[in-house]
């Protein structure tokens, strides 16, 4: 079967839904959202805790409530979507994708613009090469969350958590409330990787200890997890001999980071940002592939869904403009770079048009910085814009909406974060 749409959005989670809403509000009506699972909403559906929407809606929502704001918009406006449908491939040359589902079979779809919003994956035990056996009982925090919040089952009652990522912290509290014994959390870095509010509300309030500079060095049990060995690590993050401690547990939850599920776009020939592992994008969030945009956690991992929505609105708006108004000629391309205190910076390039609107910059710092200045410099090192920020943390992405940069006068842009 062959079909065609103006805009196809791959992913029906927070990014895809926000992008769809924005594209629709910007006048594009022929949209198709393709979602792999059996519901719209993505991971929000299993995030039954609150804390979502404070920035975007100025109210505190649960994950499903946040998702419902968008899902109801999609349904009210009859924006088409496919569920239980997997996209196999993107062919940028022919502006086609292939997907399959039970109703249509293996199908080719033509698009004018595409937004890639496929989300991220959790890192696994295999990826960090945690030594030991491979029994049942070792779960990524997100999978255990799904089993608990969607299916109504605990995967164990004596729980240890590796990594202080937010899902792990949220699950520490959640399992504790369900009567599980949450023994502790180990974080290999000397600082937490989760949001501060989650450390306080999920660990401190429940007396769950957080061990920094500590990691799991052995998994015990052949069929079912019987325990773990944890060890302190040195400054190079190598385990310190003699610091081992055995902990009896039936569950090890991993909250050791997320990474963009960007393989399909990469395989389609899109340039990859080696720092984020997501796509290389311009300020409109268009990738190196013609008319293909990327946003949300598949572009770079966010810590707040509100920021996913804000970013995805940019992709949706610009995809709509591209389809409705055609491609505009730009004068030049300015490449961006960052200094050693930052782990990445988006966008990777800025296309300079007659009229340039606000540009959304996103980055993370590598180490906590309590008082910082953020400098925007041209190719000669001249400061063209400056911000001051406090309490920058690696776990909290910074987004800056910057207007009135003198883009016509510069040829490259470097963003620097400096501790004051």
């Amino acid at each position, binding site marked *: 079967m062959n079909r065609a749409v103006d805009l196809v959005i791959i992913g029906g989670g927070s990014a895809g839904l926000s992008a769809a809403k924005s594209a629709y509000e910007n006048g594009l009506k022929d949209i198709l959202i393709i979602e*792999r699972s059996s519901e719209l909403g993505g991971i929000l559906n299993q995030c039954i805790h609150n804390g979502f929407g404070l920035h975007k809606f100025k109210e505190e929502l649960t994950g499903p409530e946040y998702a419902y704001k968008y899902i109801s918009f999609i349904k009210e406006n009859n924006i088409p979507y496919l569920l*239980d449908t*997997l996209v*196999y491939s993107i062919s940028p040359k022919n502006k086609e994708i292939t997907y*399959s*589902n*039970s*109703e*249509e*079979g*293996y199908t080719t779809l033509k698009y004018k613009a595409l937004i890639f919003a496929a989300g991220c*994956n*959790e890192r*696994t*035990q*295999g*990826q960090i*090469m945690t*030594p*030991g*056996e*491979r*029994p*049942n*009982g070792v779960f*990524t925090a*997100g*999978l255990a969350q*799904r*089993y*608990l919040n*969607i*299916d*109504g*089952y*605990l*995967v*164990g*009652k004596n729980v240890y958590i590796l990594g202080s990522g937010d899902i792990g912290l949220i699950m520490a509290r959640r399992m504790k409330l*369900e*009567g599980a014994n949450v023994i502790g959390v180990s974080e290999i870095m000397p600082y937490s990787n989760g949001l501060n509010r989650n450390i306080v509300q999920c660990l401190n309030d429940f007396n769950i200890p957080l061990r920094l500079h500590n990691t799991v*060095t*052995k*998994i*015990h049990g*052949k*069929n*079912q997890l019987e325990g773990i060995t944890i060890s302190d690590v040195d400054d190079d993050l190598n*385990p310190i001999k003699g610091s081992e401690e055995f902990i009896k547990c*039936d569950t090890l939850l991993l909250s050791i980071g997320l990474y963009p599920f960007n*393989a399909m776009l990469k395989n389609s020939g899109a340039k990859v940002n080696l720092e984020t592992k997501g796509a290389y994008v311009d300020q409109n969030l268009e990738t190196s592939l013609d008319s293909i945009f990327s946003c949300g956690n598949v572009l770079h991992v966010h810590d707040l869904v509100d920021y996913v929505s804000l970013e995805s609105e940019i992709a949706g708006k610009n995809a709509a403009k591209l389809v409705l108004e055609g491609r505009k000629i730009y004068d030049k391309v300015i490449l961006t770079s960052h200094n050693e205190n930052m782990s990445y910076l988006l966008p990777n390039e800025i296309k300079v048009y007659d009229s340039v609107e606000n540009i959304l910059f996103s980055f993370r710092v590598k180490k906590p910085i309590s008082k910082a200045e953020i400098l925007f410099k041209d190719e000669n090192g001249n400061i063209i814009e400056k911000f001051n920020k406090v309490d920058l943390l690696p776990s909290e992405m910074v987004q800056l909406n910057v207007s009135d940069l003198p883009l016509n006068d510069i040829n490259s842009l470097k963003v620097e974060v400096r501790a004051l």
Partner: protein
Amino acid sequence: MSLNKNKDVFDCLIIGGGVIGCSIARYLSRFNINAILLEKHSDVCEEVSSANSAIVHSGYDPKPGTLKAKFNVLGNKMMEQVCKDLDVPYIKNGSLTIGFNGDDKKTILELIERAKINGVKARFIEKDELHNMEPNLNEECLCALYAEDSAIVSPFELTIAFMENAMDNGVKLSLDSEVINIERDIDNGLYHVYTNKDEFIAKSLVNATGLYSDKILSLIEKPSYKINPRKGEYILLDHFNANFVKHTLFMCPTKVGKGVLVSPTTSYNYIIGPSNELTDIEDTSTDFETLNEIKEVASKLIKNIPYGEVIRTFAGTRPNPDTDDFIIEESKENPLFFNVGGIMSPGLASSPAIGEYVSNLIKEKLNLSENLDYNPIRRKVFKLTSLGKDKYNELIKKDPTYGHIICRCEKVSEGEIIDSIHRNCGARTIKGVKKRLRAGFGKCQGCFCQEEVLKILARELNVDINQIRYKDEGSEILKYPSKGE
């Protein structure tokens, strides 16, 4: 404890559902025979057969005249057709045994002589040709032995397919059946085999228990050999680039050891390893130091292995016998008790030949007739990834569940999972589905699809979702209902 007494007297009872036991079962099913295989785990292919290098060795390496040499060469010749008949992934990718200096070159020339005696094709390759064949090799790789008949196979699918085909042809399978005692009735010569819950009676026994073969043998006589398990740790990379390495790369053996191999797998993942350490029989753990050593040694073959693509590390244990050769023989004290022990590398390559040989022995001893209904062909496994668009759509039209993809990393559909459950020797566990179809084998290691696979298993097996296990009894995934339930 009262045992379920099986009324049947089996012609043959095979203990052990590894690749050897399952191969023997399959070749035995060529005859009119009432046979059963007992496996202590909840699935076949759970120990030695499931964690190895997955190589069909060409056969140049074993010492001429040994059983290893004989069965390796025979098995290698049989494997391609076996995999065709059983629809098992097999790629004849050839191997390169790589030398780094003059001493290695000498060894390689000796190995080529040995290959001649074993009847195996082997050719000396100079540096230029070598680097043309494998552009990612380390510059220091100097020369190689090229064995074009070396191949790779999916060890899970081969073992499972052997058992499924055996069952299609009438052999029975009893899982979760750990043998705890064996007695021979002196009056009629029948063997009584006791598991934790059953008693079986059989005219002949095959001991194909891998790591435990000396222990199983000791239930009935003093073993003439001892198994000293050795552990091999591996690193597995994702299928990030189908051309990264094409051949199986071995290192030329030296006095220090055999080095490690780097090889593609049949799914275009890359396997790096193994280490080689004496170990406890139950120990399949990996450790930091060994994995780092493997990385260091492998860098001699390929400089920039992208370890960011690692999806799993694992270890397998090998039934290393103190005799240094395979043990394939009938017991002298206990007639019709066949020991097939010490089958470590090149055991996988040898498996069809050993299965054929042992089943022929049993046929002669028991005077079995040919099974005229024997069908060596296993019903095809529909793999979406290998079907063309039109065939795929035909399939979805017939059965829409094939259009619903469950495992997005490896592109495995609901239809494939349902089929894998309902076949003979079907999947019962999360790991069972993983071994048969690769669902959960990819980069996300099941974080996304495990829950969906679990629900399909429960539905198809008609049990509650909290009954579904990861592998053996005790590994139920959904342990406790939440307060809200």
